[in-house]
């Protein structure tokens, strides 16, 4: 099972902005039926959607970066990849800290894939808001899943994932909001991965929290 894209999409309205929901794409290479799940966190207020594009050649790793405008903060983000989905996989989709002088990863979004096919176009999206968010991360080198919890009383809006090591060696399976008790799933985000080969990996989950 591989997660191949996870991104905000533009619906049939005429505004041309990817503000209408969240899309997930996956590949099932197993002998059993599975499911692909998309989760959208929907709100109001001023939101800007920034994107960055890069070409990733065959049999290489690569990605793209999208930066939020100066005074805005990342509330979420994702990555879309064109072409045959069986030939690539996500290895990173996470918020990053730019050169704004603070240590919060609020400045935009970074992504990385491994492309086992022909050339691919990678589009990274940053969903940016005026309000400050709180950023939490949690890592493990001993499990296929790791939870990043939002502070008590806050609500998860976006999530990310990063896997250490060479991108050819591991792929993402989940960047999913969760609930510690009952819905809605606003407690934080859980990241999942599966290793293809190579030395053990460190999996990091990122949760972006409001309130």
């Amino acid at each position, binding site marked *: 099972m591989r*997660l191949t894209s996870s991104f905000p999409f533009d619906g049939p309205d005429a505004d041309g902005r990817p503000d209408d929901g969240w899309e997930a794409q996956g590949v099932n290479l197993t002998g059993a039926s599975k499911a692909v799940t998309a989760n959208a966190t929907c709100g109001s207020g001023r939101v800007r959607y920034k994107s960055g594009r890069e070409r990733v050649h065959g049999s290489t790793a690569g990605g793209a970066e999208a930066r939020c405008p100066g005074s805005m903060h990342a509330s979420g983000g994702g990555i879309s990849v064109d072409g045959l989905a069986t030939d690539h996989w996500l290895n990173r989709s996470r918020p990053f800290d730019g050169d704004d002088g603070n240590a919060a990863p609020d400045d935009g979004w970074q992504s990385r894939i491994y492309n086992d096919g022909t050339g691919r176009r990678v589009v990274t999206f940053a969903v940016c808001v005026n309000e400050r968010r709180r950023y939490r991360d949690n890592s493990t080198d001993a499990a296929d899943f790791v939870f990043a919890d939002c502070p008590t009383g806050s609500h998860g809006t976006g999530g990310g994932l990063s896997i250490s090591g060479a991108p050819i060696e591991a792929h993402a399976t989940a960047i999913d909001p969760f609930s510690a008790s009952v819905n809605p799933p606003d407690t934080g985000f859980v990241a999942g991965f599966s290793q293809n080969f190579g030395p053990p990996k460190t999996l990091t989950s990122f949760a972006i929290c*409001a309130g």
Partner: protein
Amino acid sequence: MGAFTRRGVSMGVLTMLLGAIGPVTASADTDLGSAGGFTYIQDQTTLPMGASTASAQADCPSGTKVVGGGAAVEAVPTHPR
């Protein structure tokens, strides 16, 4: 079985395999509830066995816009709290 027949069988298997690759229609969205001014919407689509691809789209309610999201192709474990 001759080489030509074996090749025919192999092509048949490949054709069936490639036939399984393609978009699968998403099901209806589920409203998982609201908190803190946010509404959480989920959509899930079956990924058939074999080399299949599928997409799911969770649509925000009218009058709202997406501020983040996530995705999964594996069932995630319960939070260890």
